[in-house]
């Protein structure tokens, strides 16, 4: 069984839960930007939670199935259509051989996860099927999908009922405006003045058009003022430069002190820009659902609050599991 790509969408890639263990040589985790939605899509069609799915951003692909399968679309509100007939998001539906899956315009969010029973069966590279496009690694030929591609689909191991859904309160999507992203200040926070630090958390920022799997750029807040220094050897002369170092996932670098960039699943693993802190792990999924121009506030938290947010997120996952494993 296979899926023929009739139209690829904007940047549709194969993703699973990622490829840990190679960040020290510059190969990032990759995997779904909204991992919660990816897991939900898989569970809806009876797949293991980390099976490979399609991640579509802003615009859906058009796909033709060569065999029968069950499909679910989660994450962004990107309404699926089967041979032109509207289908529900966050719900599973059967597809027959020869049927075409297409999508209506994006209503909300940014990234949709399209799971197919059996999972997308591209080769496992370094322990994962995820696409790392910058390194031409994994996924389907190391790149985003193109018209004419034919994606192999695995054999389902379990069968589940059609039409199961995920309740609103189990979807883990961004709520309220502006979207709040919790940040632990640190790393090179000491490089900016106290007033700049206060402004960073007070200002409302907006997602810039330069927002992809590598990182999300924000603009609209006040430029950060630096504490004066003599540049250390190897760092470079700009006050925002450091001796090239590792970049944590979720770290917030601010080149030139003007536009913060939050690194995401396809992060560059290091470089020469200072960072003011790191988005907590529990809020990383939210970023994957932000469209350009979305207002955002960075909210200061400490380790204790980061860990309690982590526990809440784990409880949400557990509820999703128990709702769909039955």
């Amino acid at each position, binding site marked *: 069984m296979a899926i023929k790509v009739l139209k690829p969408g904007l940047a549709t890639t194969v993703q699973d839960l990622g490829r*840990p*263990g190679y*960040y*020290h*040589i*510059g*190969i990032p985790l990759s995997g779904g930007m909204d991992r919660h939605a990816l897991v939900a899509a898989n569970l809806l069609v009876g797949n293991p939670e980390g099976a490979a799915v399609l991640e579509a951003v802003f615009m859906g692909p058009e796909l033709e199935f060569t065999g029968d399968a069950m499909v679910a679309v989660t994450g962004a509100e990107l309404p699926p259509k089967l041979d032109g007939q509207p289908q529900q998001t966050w719900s599973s539906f059967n597809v027959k051989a020869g049927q075409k899956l297409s999508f209506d315009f994006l209503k909300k969010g940014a990234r949709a996860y399209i799971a197919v029973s059996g999972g997308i069966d591209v080769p496992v*590279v370094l322990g994962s099927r995820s696409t*790392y496009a*910058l*390194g*031409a*690694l*994994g996924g389907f030929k*190391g790149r985003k999908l193109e018209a004419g591609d034919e994606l192999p689909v695995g054999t389902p191991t379990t069968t589940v009922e059609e039409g199961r859904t995920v309740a609103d309160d189990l979807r883990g999507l961004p709520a309220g405006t502006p979207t709040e992203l919790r940040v*632990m200040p*640190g*790393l090179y*926070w000491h490089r900016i003045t106290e007033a700049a630090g206060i402004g960073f958390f007070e200002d409302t920022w907006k997602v810039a058009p330069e927002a992809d799997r590598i990182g999300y750029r924000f603009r609209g807040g006040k430029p950060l003022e630096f504490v004066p220094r003599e540049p*250390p*050897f*190897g*760092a*470079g*002369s700009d006050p925002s*430069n*450091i*001796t*090239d*170092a*590792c970049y*944590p*996932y*979720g*770290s917030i670098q601010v080149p030139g002190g003007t536009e913060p960039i939050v690194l995401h699943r396809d992060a*560059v*693993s*290091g*470089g*020469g820009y200072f*960072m003011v*802190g*790191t*988005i*907590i*792990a*529990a809020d990383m999924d939210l970023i994957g659902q932000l469209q350009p121009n979305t207002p955002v506030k960075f909210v200061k938290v400490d*380790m204790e609050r*980061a*860990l309690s947010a*982590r526990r809440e997120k*784990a409880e949400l996952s557990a509820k999703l599991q128990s709702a769909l494993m039955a």
Partner: protein
Amino acid sequence: MQTRFSFGGDEHIFAEVDEAMSLEAFFKSLFVTNAVREARIKGVTEICPANASYQVKFDPDMIKPDDLLAELKRMDAAADKSEPVIATRIIEIPVLYNDPWTHETLMRFRERHQDPTSTDLEYSARINDLDGIDGFIKAHSSAPWFVSMVGFVAGLPFLYQMVERQRQIQAPKYLRPRTDTPKLTIGHGGCFSCIYSVRGAGGYQMYGVTPMPIYDPSQTISYLRDFMCLFKPGDIVKWKPIDRAAYDAAVADVEAGRFAPIIRDVSFSLAEFNRDIDGYNHKLEGVLHGH
């Protein structure tokens, strides 16, 4: 040097050995990360050495952040007592300096450069008080370089020149990054050279290209079959200037599967190196050429 620790969110510990780059800071980062890897601490998922810093990623559901921090501080202090000697490799990298491809690219992005009226090589020679392009190539290729970090993108080595600080080549990054850099470009920014492992954006000055692939996700190139990335932190690189004919021949050899890179095992002692830098580098080069 007093290492500064910081949490990078709830899943990373970031450790800055020194603000400034030095071989001492790099060796410490290498020793601590080796020790962390050998300790096989439960919950640690990524161990990343960098030029003068390092980073450990962990799962706080498996190990308490403060417990891991205390453990890392202990290992960091212990690394100060290590003898700075490593068993490593020296690798020869052929380079066609002043090649047509980086030249075409740097002309295309000239308005993003500090000096739009000269090339990256001419500019770098001038600001480093070197005698034109030839003088620059000699200074760049005569001493070996340490791979002090691998990253940014897959398999990209950052290289630190093994000469006294006052002789090190330094150059700023482009004023605004380019959106294109040819694959296998030899670049330089700050005090670091690099080899761009993939085509893409970049801000380093561009000096030449190597015909020798260093990253191969398809794992078809003979010496990248075991692992797709050539470099590890701690490797030593010696540039070998080549002409266009040698470059074309090497590219043909790579394509035919008969290119054999020169890679030799070597032991490196930081103390002995510091006692006589030029003499020690001469000995390293001897190892490369089998005498």
